[in-house]
């Protein structure tokens, strides 16, 4: 394995979040009854013609600008010809020689913190095909054309990735970006975001790329990682045992975690691409590009950099908190309430308690049961020493469960921190008196027993004693 270098390029298909299809007025909503969202254009009736959806173009341009790419002033829709029942026209309208977006890039952060730039060769607009349904039908196949004509942006990377982990990091980066731009809902289960992986291996130091296999239709980050790992191992084993990798299309079996040959290069279709005479060349003028540029949101990298400098967060924290627009907005709302000086505390809570509660309940940040203002209210009680961090976790759980605010819960449950030195001291005196054996051992040099006394005091005060005061007073009394 150490002798081998892995080379990966991804073709990501992002379904654009337009309301209607790319060449017809039919709706694109997911999950409708079969063929209820297929117009005459989607069904390829004789005589019908495609009309380009301007919104899809706007979204493609948005993506192009966000990856620093060239937006082509003139791009061309071509026909990719092949027969399949879920392809009603017998050709797919796609962009071939002249895509709308060319030469962009995205930076990914590797595990060791190194930043790597992945080149994006092109991104082009195309229509999705329908679906063939084989289940529950004897001696027949069903066809659902609801998805036919759904707009896709195919994002093609350079073969710049060198491991399955890098490929996943890149795919996640694109996933974050398309959701930031609000051009794709990123729903991988519904197939709104999926990819094909081109994988090859070569001996370290070798210049020429090895023969690649293309693994089709990977629709989860985990599958991408597993499929590439399997494929890399397969190719190395094959070559090392004297075999040769053949150029082919492979399918990933997510049950067995293996890839299987689908068709070889020789069996591949000759797609007979040619410009679609039903559509004029797509011309995009600079004013339109400028207008789209003015609508771009703050991008993930920009937001992360700002969080790091403005709030003094680590690059890792800044990255996590900018992973989605909604999460970033939530965090910033909390910081706005508690003050930038306390941003680190806010970050810890958003990434800690809040994220685990969201994960546990399977909720998106937008559906959080604790609003930013409520979380800020809780943090304010930590900051003014009304409660300890430990009690705060308990309060948070109640807030999450009941939806009420921190102050109400603190009052109702009597969780207010004990900061009266006299009261704490009285408890300490009692504890020491009740544990003479431990006192003797401590005084004989067993320092570890200090935590025992802290624990006893906190237990006696139901955790409400101010921890710093407990520490100070215990040290005095035990010495």
């Amino acid at each position: 394995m150490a002798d081998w270098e892995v080379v990966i390029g991804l073709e990501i298909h992002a379904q654009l979040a337009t309301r209607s299809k790319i060449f017809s007025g039919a709706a694109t909503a997911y999950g409708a009854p079969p063929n209820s969202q297929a117009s005459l254009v989607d069904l390829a009736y004789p005589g019908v013609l495609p009309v380009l959806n301007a919104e899809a173009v706007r979204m493609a341009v948005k993506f192009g600008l966000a990856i620093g790419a060239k937006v082509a002033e003139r791009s061309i829709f071509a026909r990719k010809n092949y027969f399949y029942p879920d392809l009603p026209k017998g050709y797919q309208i796609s962009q071939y020689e002249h895509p709308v977006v060319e030469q962009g890039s995205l930076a990914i952060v590797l595990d060791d913190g190194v930043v790597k730039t992945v080149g994006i060769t092109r991104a082009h607009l195309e229509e999705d095909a329908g679906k063939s349904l084989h289940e529950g039908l004897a001696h027949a196949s069903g066809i659902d054309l609801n998805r036919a004509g759904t707009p896709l942006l195919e994002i093609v990377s350079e073969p710049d990735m060198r491991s399955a982990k890098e490929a996943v990091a890149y795919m996640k980066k694109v996933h974050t970006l398309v959701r930031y731009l609000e051009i794709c809902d990123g729903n991988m289960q519904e197939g709104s975001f999926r990819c094909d992986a081109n994988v090859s291996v070569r001996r370290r130091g070798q210049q020429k790329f090895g023969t690649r296999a293309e693994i089709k239709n990977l629709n989860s980050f985990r599958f991408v990682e597993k499929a590439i790992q399997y494929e890399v191992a397969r190719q190395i084993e094959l070559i090392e045992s004297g075999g040769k990798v053949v150029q082919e299309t492979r399918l990933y079996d997510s049950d067995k975690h293996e890839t299987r040959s689908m068709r070889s290069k020789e069996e591949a279709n000759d797609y007979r691409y040619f410009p679609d005479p039903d559509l004029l060349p797509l011309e995009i003028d600079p004013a339109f590009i400028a207008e789209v540029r003015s609508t771009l949101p703050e991008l993930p990298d920009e937001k992360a950099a700002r969080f790091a400098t403005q709030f003094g967060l680590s690059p890792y924290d800044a990255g996590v908190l900018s992973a989605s627009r909604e999460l970033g907005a939530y965090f910033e709302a909390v910081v706005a309430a508690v003050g930038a000086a306390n941003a680190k505390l806010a970050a810890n809570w958003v990434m800690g308690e809040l994220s685990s509660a969201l994960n546990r309940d399977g909720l998106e940040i937008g559906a959080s049961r604790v609003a930013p203002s409520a979380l800020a209210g809780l943090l304010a009680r930590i900051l003014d020493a009304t409660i300890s961090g430990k009690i705060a976790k308990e309060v948070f759980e109640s807030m999450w469960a009941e939806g009420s605010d921190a102050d109400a819960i603190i009052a109702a449950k009597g969780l207010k921190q004990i900061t009266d030195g006299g009261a704490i001291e009285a408890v300490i005196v009692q504890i020491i008196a009740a544990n003479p054996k431990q006192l003797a051992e401590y005084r004989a040099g067993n320092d570890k027993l200090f935590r025992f006394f802290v624990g006893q005091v906190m237990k006696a005060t139901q955790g409400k004693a101010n921890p710093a005061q407990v520490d100070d007073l215990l040290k005095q009394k035990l010495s």
Partner: protein
Amino acid sequence: MLHDLSIGALADLLGRGKLSSVELTRHFLGRIERYDPALNSLITATADQALAAAADADRRLQRGESGPLLGIPLIHKDIFCTEGVRTSCGSRMLDNFVAPYDATVVERLRAAGGVMLGKANMDEFAMGSSNETSYYGPVKNPWDTSKVPGGSSGGSAAATAARLAPYATGTDTGGSIRQPAALTGVTGIKPTYGRVSRYGIVAFASSLDQAGVFARSAADAATVLQAMAGFDPRDSTSVDVPVPDYGAALAQTLAGLKIGLLAEFFDGLEARNVALIEAALAVYRSLGAETVDVSLPHLPLSVPTYYVVAPAECSSNLSRFDGVRFGYRCEAPKDLMDLYKRSRGEGFGPEVKRRIMTGTYVLSAGYFDAYYLKAQKARQLITDEFRAAFTQVDLLLGPTTPTPAFALGAKVDDPITMYLNDIYTIGANLAGLPGLSMPCGTIDGLPMGLQLIGPHFAEARVLNAAHQYQLATDWHLRAPRGYE
């Protein structure tokens, strides 16, 4: 007789209440019943719908509505989708196909009060120059029923010539309006590419197809084109250029009009054909026009260029006929591949298959550059040469066809000879220019056509020049014997 009257004259009678649309419609339905069994110009007659539409038009007329086409019958080429009425495109493949929508042209003429009498026979999928490739059998030429009417809009041409309707629609991809208009002695115009919407026209070659009109005069054609033309947001290749008043332009003088004579059109032209054109030029000179010799050196490449581009596009356009969603499906397919192979093998006729195979070949890996790409370059050269010519002249004039109507069966087994019928018409399609054919005399008793080609969107000028010629001559008024 009613069937000799111009559209203008009929509209006048209808408008003044001297004639009802139902009466007029019955008259033409009667002629169809009488003459069409011998001509086979219609695939589907729609008498009941026609009478209902006529009654509706009469109600509109009675309400005081008026319009140049309100209550006037017509025939649509069976390539235009018509809601509720079969659209066969001359093919077994669509023998059972009833479109759930109207083509834009159909919608516009319906809105104008047109009364559809039926759907005209045509070469299968508009591929042919003799109307012999139709699944529904050949159309006969009313001038001589042993002769072809031309194609692919042969039914529309024959029906117009035989006075079965005041006008008919057609489509022209390589001459499919102008060539049959010439061979049947009627006026046919193919507008600029993009002038009339292609929405709802079963596609043959998308970059060349254009809808137009068959009528008995340029004036009638102008009236119909006025209603058909205009931008359609459903067709991305239709052009948003205002439609001028074609009728108003008809009367303009031709004094000073510069008519270009293409050297390539006269090279090798038969003497009798030359003589007809010379006679027509004499008329034009008498009307004040002057002639200029021009040359388009690459025009002779038109036919080979066309027979790469058109098949390439058709091979892709016809992929949708796969037996899955509509149209012909073979009996008891074994599997998917069998379904495809037999549905297409049984549903398409030989000429369509020939073009699909040619088109598939020229787009294939390894041949694309040598054929498709080279043809596109030739097309560009031809277009550029036309544009250059139109900086010197206002119109180009020449023959429409090399010969008059030929005998049924004479060329059907010889595709190359058949393709050469379109030698004078294809250029206008490749360049997207408006072209018109009108009768200018006869050879061996059969009508011959004179072709006018104009610059892009100069339909008004083309119609004006044709109308002025028709004011000075009477070729366009002659009816085939037996159909007067």
